[in-house]
């Protein structure tokens, strides 16, 4: 099998539209008669890739792709867990994520044994490291996500705002460098129910992740080296207090604890939010006058710093994996390569998503410079720097999602005033200890 892969290896220089990337190792082959069953993440920001790459791969290889499932990642996660339990792993390729991958045991094959080293060399080494579970490379990274702070520029240019803010807080109104400044400015800009200073995702893994990155930025940690919870600490209480203060000051919408990613993205685009911490995938949407009321008025800064002097940078990568049970591993490897190839990553980068191949960063920045698209240039330069300097993953352990499910109701209880931050974190810490004990960490 490996022989056929190497025979199909072609070192080529690829040209796609108006950009040229560095030499890319391609992984074509003749897979006539092969049908790959795949389970993919669905949704507006993800499906454009499939519409272009699947016909491209089918045309070049003669193989066929059968999409068995296309649903949001949380539903896909449940489906794959059911597949594992029933032993019904009758698909070859599935969407995955670095935060989820460690849950799935050994159902996904070690791509170190399948993908030629020259193919792997085209990806950012650190991202490949994050894609590795117990020494096994179980996923090919598709695009990375980290969040930075979008804001409405005109609010910061308004002379009255500048004067009033300085009078009230004693420092100049400029895009925030720290999360304390975000709090001050959010409270200053808020005029509920018509306008809010900021917002945050308020439930499930989303708020747990936001809390996690703020704990890190405040100089704390979730776990010690034995995975004993240590977030019930001054850094943890300070992080949770930030959410509470904004909620109590009505600087975020009342319903924020039911918000997930779409709600915050659409909220900022509606023009009723001053600042929004979000990923690059929304950039194009925010600056499109047909979809967004803030188009043309958007600034972007790196995620601010916590009290520990670190910037928040909760990060991960969407990816694709190949099942160990796949009968056509060679064809599946070729498809995995196609889905994360230069061409594929350039398609997604044009929509604002952050590539996992260094060559595409260079190519997309060059393309935006040539087009004179100052906004997207700012987006790519900010996110490139953020991914290089600020990004960190959550603990890459199978218990991450279960842990976040234990944590987030306690965070919500503190935000709503049902519990003090200390009580909420103590309860969450107790539950987290139980989860880690059950998992055998100590």
């Amino acid at each position, binding site marked *: 099998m490996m022989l056929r892969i190497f025979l199909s290896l072609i070192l080529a220089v690829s040209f796609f539209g108006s950009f040229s990337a560095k030499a890319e190792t391609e992984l074509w082959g003749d897979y006539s008669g092969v049908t790959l069953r795949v389970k993919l993440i669905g949704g507006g920001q993800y499906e454009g890739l499939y519409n272009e790459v699947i016909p491209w791969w089918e045309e070049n290889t003669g193989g066929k792709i059968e999409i068995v499932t296309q649903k949001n990642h*949380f539903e896909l*996660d*449940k489906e794959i*867990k*059911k597949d*594992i*339990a029933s*032993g019904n792993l009758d698909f070859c390729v599935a969407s995955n994520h670095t935060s989820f991958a460690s*849950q*799935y*045991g050994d159902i996904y094959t070690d791509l170190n044994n399948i993908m030629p080293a020259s193919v792997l060399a085209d990806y950012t080494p650190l991202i490949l490291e994050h894609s590795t579970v117990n020494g096994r490379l179980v996923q090919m990274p598709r695009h990375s996500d980290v969040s930075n702070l979008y804001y409405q520029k005109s609010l910061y240019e308004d002379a009255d705002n500048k004067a009033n803010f300085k009078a009230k807080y004693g420092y100049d109104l400029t895009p925030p460098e720290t999360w304390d400044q975000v709090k001050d400015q959010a409270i200053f800009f808020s005029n*509920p*129910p018509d306008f809010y200073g900021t917002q945050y995702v*308020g*439930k*499930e893994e989303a708020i747990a992740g936001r809390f996690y990155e703020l704990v890190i930025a405040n100089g704390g940690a979730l776990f010690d080296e034995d995975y004993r919870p240590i977030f019930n600490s001054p850094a943890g209480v300070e992080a949770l207090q930030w959410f509470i203060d904004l909620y109590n000051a009505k600087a975020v*919408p*009342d*319903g924020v*604890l*039911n918000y997930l990613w779409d709600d915050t993205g659409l*909220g900022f685009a509606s023009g*009723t939010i001053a600042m929004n911490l979000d990923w690059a995938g929304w950039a194009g949407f925010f600056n499109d006058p047909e979809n967004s009321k803030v188009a043309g008025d958007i600034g972007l800064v790196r995620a601010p710093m916590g009290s520990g002097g670190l910037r928040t940078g909760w990060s991960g990568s969407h990816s694709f994996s190949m099942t160990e049970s796949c009968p056509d591993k060679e064809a599946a490897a070729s498809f995995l390569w196609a889905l994360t190839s230069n061409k594929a990553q350039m398609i997604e980068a044009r929509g604002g998503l952050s590539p996992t191949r260094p060559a595409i960063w260079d190519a997309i920045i060059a393309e935006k410079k040539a087009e004179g698209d100052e906004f997207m240039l700012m987006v790519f330069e900010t996110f490139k720097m953020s991914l290089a300097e600020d990004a960190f993953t959550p603990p890459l352990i*199978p218990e991450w*999602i*279960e842990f976040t*499910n234990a944590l*987030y*109701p*306690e965070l*919500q*209880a503190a*935000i*709503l005033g*049902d519990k003090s931050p200390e009580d909420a974190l103590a309860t969450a810490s107790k539950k987290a200890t139980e989860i880690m004990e*059950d998992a055998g960490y100590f």
Partner: protein
Amino acid sequence: MRKFLNGPWILLMPTLIILTCVVLLPLLLSLWTSFTPFKLTKPDTLYRFVGFRNYERLIGDLDFWIAFGRTVLFLAIALNLELVFGLGIALLINKITYGQRTLRTLMMFPMMFSPILVGFQWKYIFNDNIGLMNNFLREFGVIQPIPWLVDGILANVSIMAAEIWSSTSVFAILLLAGLLGIPKDPIEAAKVDGCNSWQVFKNITLPFLMPFVFIAMTIRSLDVARAYDIVQMMTGGGPAKRTELLWTLISRTGYVDAKMGMANAMSYISIFLSIAFTFFFFYKLVEARQRLSYE
């Protein structure tokens, strides 16, 4: 053997085999998993017997019992309100002489929506920022948005409103069928004897209708867990577990945390709830039928 082959058992065998495969075996398997630390992502854990550990943990788990109590309350309030509204609608439609069929069809519209769609629809209605309800109230001077899906009481009321809207027509249809089957003679005789409408309803219509009421209650109490999708869409059991019902808790434990052994232990405890409701309604059904035949 010959006797067996010629007897009734052989005729019952296909049914017994199907019931064993479809009902008994899955039940036994799920019962077994409740005595294991079975995780969906670790199939080997299915064979590790841990005795009553899952049940012991649940007995001391306050979150579980709060969700249990909230589910009982939710069932009791929602089913009774659905009954009252369904009865009212059925009585009104029964009075109509023109366009009854059209109204009966219209009445069934909410049943045609999947619970997921109902959840989305009502989540939008009760959205604090862009929801119909707050915009409607704003017209009447309520400027500060009401956090319908955040406040503990309002969130449960909102979910209940969605559930009642979705399922009242089940009661209405079953009770309308009962109303259509009531003989006219006793009602006319009562009216001739000078009974007013309330007396006719209380002493004749309602006793005739009671078996239908309990049949409807039994069906709905078994079927009400479909409301899981509504709750999941509207609040997911939150915020801060304020709307957590057994269904959301079990689903999250089983499919998101992948702890199917624990989720099945929760299910077996909650089965007692279903059995209690069903037994109560069957008991009342038999009682109502006996009273009817006696009268």
